[in-house]
């Protein structure tokens, strides 16, 4: 259930977008991926090698260039 304390989507400053629940996510190439875990992290920096998921790569890009 959605509540103010438990949003469906959380934007992490400088990092990914967290997505709660079961979803289909279309990546930049148009391919569709199904989420597999209770919370998924979607890449926002564009540098992840595991698109559309975050793989922590945002931490290696300069702070001011992070999303």
């Amino acid at each position, binding site marked *: 259930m959605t509540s103010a304390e438990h949003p469906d989507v959380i934007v*992490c400053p400088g990092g*990914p977008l967290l997505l709660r629940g079961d979803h289909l996510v279309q990546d930049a190439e148009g391919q569709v991926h199904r989420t597999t875990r*209770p919370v998924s992290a979607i890449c926002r920096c564009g540098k992840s*090698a595991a698109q559309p998921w975050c793989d922590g790569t945002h931490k290696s890009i300069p702070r001011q260039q992070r999303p």
Partner: protein
Amino acid sequence: MLTPKGRGSLSEIVFESMRRPSTSWSAVLRTLPDDDDDVQITLWALYELHYRGFEDVDDALEWQPQLIELRRSLEAGFEQELRDRAPAHGPDGDFADAFFTVVADHDGPSLARYVQRDANREQVLELLRLRSIYHLKESDPTAWLVPRLPNSTKAALMELQFDEYGCGDPSALHAELFARGMDACGLRPEYGAYVDDAPVEVLEENNAMSLFGLNRRLRGAALGHLAAFEVTSSVPSRRIAQGMARLSLPDAMIGYYTEHVEADAVHEQLSVRTICGSLLDQEPGLRDDMFFGAFTCLDLEDRFARRMLEAWAA
């Protein structure tokens, strides 16, 4: 699992007394440890009584008063040692920002980089044997915390733990993924199989997690440790997976690490923001302990990495 090999005067008499509880407990309590190795293996076994125990020890000894007294005395010394190693205070400012910055600025030796580029097969298998002491009970020390937290933090922690424990599917439980990887590598997948090989640095890493998890007053340190562990997992896990692929290790073992690339990219955000964040909203006084737990996680891994890299360079 059977009781481990004793490593000195204290562990020898404690393990012998655990196997034959008719022994005089007062003699056990009068015995002094020979060195850190002796202290840490004793403490590890005393903590283990609260996890899965030993086949050659009566389960009732979990709450034997003299063993609890001994554990309290050893862990008080260990906690003081950990606090002496850590900075007294964490940085000010927004917690998540400060936390990610502290971890990013921590510059220690990296076993993951070595595995990625340089390690040979034997070295990686040795690392897996030593990592198995924790990975075969992965997330268990954190599970002690659940009933000790306010509801918002409890729910946030369970969101992460549910994933660690396979979302209800035992074959997807992280400890089970590691066990299958060990088996595929020709290593023993049984819980605790390699504890006799563990150097003091590995025992300290494991004992710190049990110390934090089993003492409610240290809940801040436990969650700070968890967060630092998660924040330093995703990128190193990818490096280890790449190193294992370079050495043609079995897919089951590589799969454990690739699972952690994506899982921990989620968990690092959850642990810092929703788990530590929600606890700090209610108990802001725990902030320094969170940084203490985080420092302990990073520092103990540095110590282990230095030991292994020195041994492998020789």
